[in-house]
């Protein structure tokens, strides 16, 4: 091969890693129809490197080989493609803002639908159910709790959380304006805190991808927290577009504490209701 061509073919480790990452994501999409191709690459790189070191793999293409040939391995590797870190009443100010701004409006509807998108292991859903219960809204509400991770959805539905997390969850609950004691909502058993089944009789748990699926219902409130940060801007625009199409006129959209609409394509379709708590309303148009 002529020397010049060879030189042009030299790449840094990172360039090669990114190339392998592209191939891996394409392969996962073709084989399993999970579309991670438009996720934020900075955190994907990190998580793939963790997966490699955890499984003693030297190259990303070794991970690709196992993912493609072993569906059980892919099911496990889902934990590396998605981030499952959550808390009940995480960022308490957000839940306080829901009480202050959204609840009075939601109370004017005879029935309401709430979509918790990217609900992970359910902490946000159970928080939402408690909040609606305390505001007298749960009985006329339907909560759609969606995620792409089947293990997370299963955990969400079980409503069992480790006991050692309850102190943090209780603090958050109080800071979010909780009316009772969080312990009124759970009993202990199965080695954990088991939340009251009554809270989830209005909850529908379902598999839904913000990357590939369409709108499935008209809703009054979308709560999608700490999911958009894992998407690149293009995919964020798609997801926010779905929320917009799903929301009733003047419906509410709540995002994570550092997520904002200002860098995306839909900035003009929403107005801030509590800018600090990232609570938005669909504009009238």
């Amino acid at each position, binding site marked *: 091969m002529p020397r010049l061509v060879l030189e042009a073919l030299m790449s840094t480790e990172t360039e090669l890693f990114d190339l392998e990452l592209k191939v891996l994501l394409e392969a996962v999409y073709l084989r399993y129809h999970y579309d991670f191709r438009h996720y934020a690459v900075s955190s994907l790189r990190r998580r793939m490197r963790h997966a490699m070191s955890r499984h003693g793999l030297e190259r990303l293409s070794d991970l690709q080989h196992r993912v493609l040939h072993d569906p059980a391995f892919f099911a496990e590797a889902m934990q590396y493609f998605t981030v499952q870190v959550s808390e009940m009443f995480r960022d308490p100010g957000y839940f306080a803002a829901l009480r202050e701004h959204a609840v009075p409006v939601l109370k004017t509807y005879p029935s309401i639908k709430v979509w918790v998108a990217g609900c992970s292991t359910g902490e946000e859903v159970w928080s939402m159910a408690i909040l609606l219960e305390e505001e007298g809204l749960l009985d006329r509400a339907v909560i759609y709790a969606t995620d792409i991770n089947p293990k997370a959805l299963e955990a969400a539905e079980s409503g069992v959380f480790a006991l050692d997390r309850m102190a943090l969850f209780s603090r958050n609950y109080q800071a979010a304006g909780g009316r009772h004691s969080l312990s009124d909502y759970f009993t202990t058993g199965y080695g954990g805190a088991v939340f009251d089944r009554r809270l989830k009789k209005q909850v529908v748990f379902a598999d839904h991808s913000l990357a590939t699926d369409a709108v499935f219902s008209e809703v009054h409130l979308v709560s999608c927290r700490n999911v958009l940060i894992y998407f690149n801007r293009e995919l964020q625009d798609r997801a926010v577009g779905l929320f917009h199409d799903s929301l009733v006129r003047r419906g509410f959209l709540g995002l994570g504490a*550092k997520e904002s609409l200002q860098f995306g394509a839909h900035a003009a379709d929403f107005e801030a209701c509590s800018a600090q708590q990232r609570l938005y309303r669909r504009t009238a148009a």
Partner: protein
Amino acid sequence: MSTPFPQAVVIGASAGGVQALREVLRCFPARFPAPVLVVQHIPRDRPSGLAALFDGECPLPVAEAEDKEPLCPGVVLFAPPDYHLLVEDRSTVSLSRDEPVLYSRPAIDPLFESAADVFGAGLLGILLTGASSDGSAGVAAVRREGGTVWIQDPDEAVSPVMPASAIAFAGADAIVTLRDLCRRLGSFTP
């Protein structure tokens, strides 16, 4: 002696870091032509106020990063409480709520590693005082990708553990006092 400007600067600090950062951020020349990203370890459960504090003291504008915020030359971005700050590409940052690293979120390693991926040899990393070993893997990544790392002299640092462990783990291109650091920041030329 003059050295070309880096394409981006990342700074990590922990215990004793606020005071050290105050001195370092003051030394940046106005119209510094590269973005500056900072992780200072902070409590997870309350607003940090650091960006507001330094905004008035540093010749460059200082803000707390938002997800997908553009990276602008001459703008200092701080990691917000409870989020890791990552470099997404040459013009954008990303935030993440992945697991804490060595009990910290934000943590220094994710910032340094992601910045090394994107800026390679164009990156300058600065590691200051701290009582943790966060930053060691990050320093290694920056150096592996050909970037430059300056580490605060552990003898001068309020808390020597963080700079000392990074030096032991990954070495440094220079071990500097805050005064050296200021001089070096002032000596960059286009």
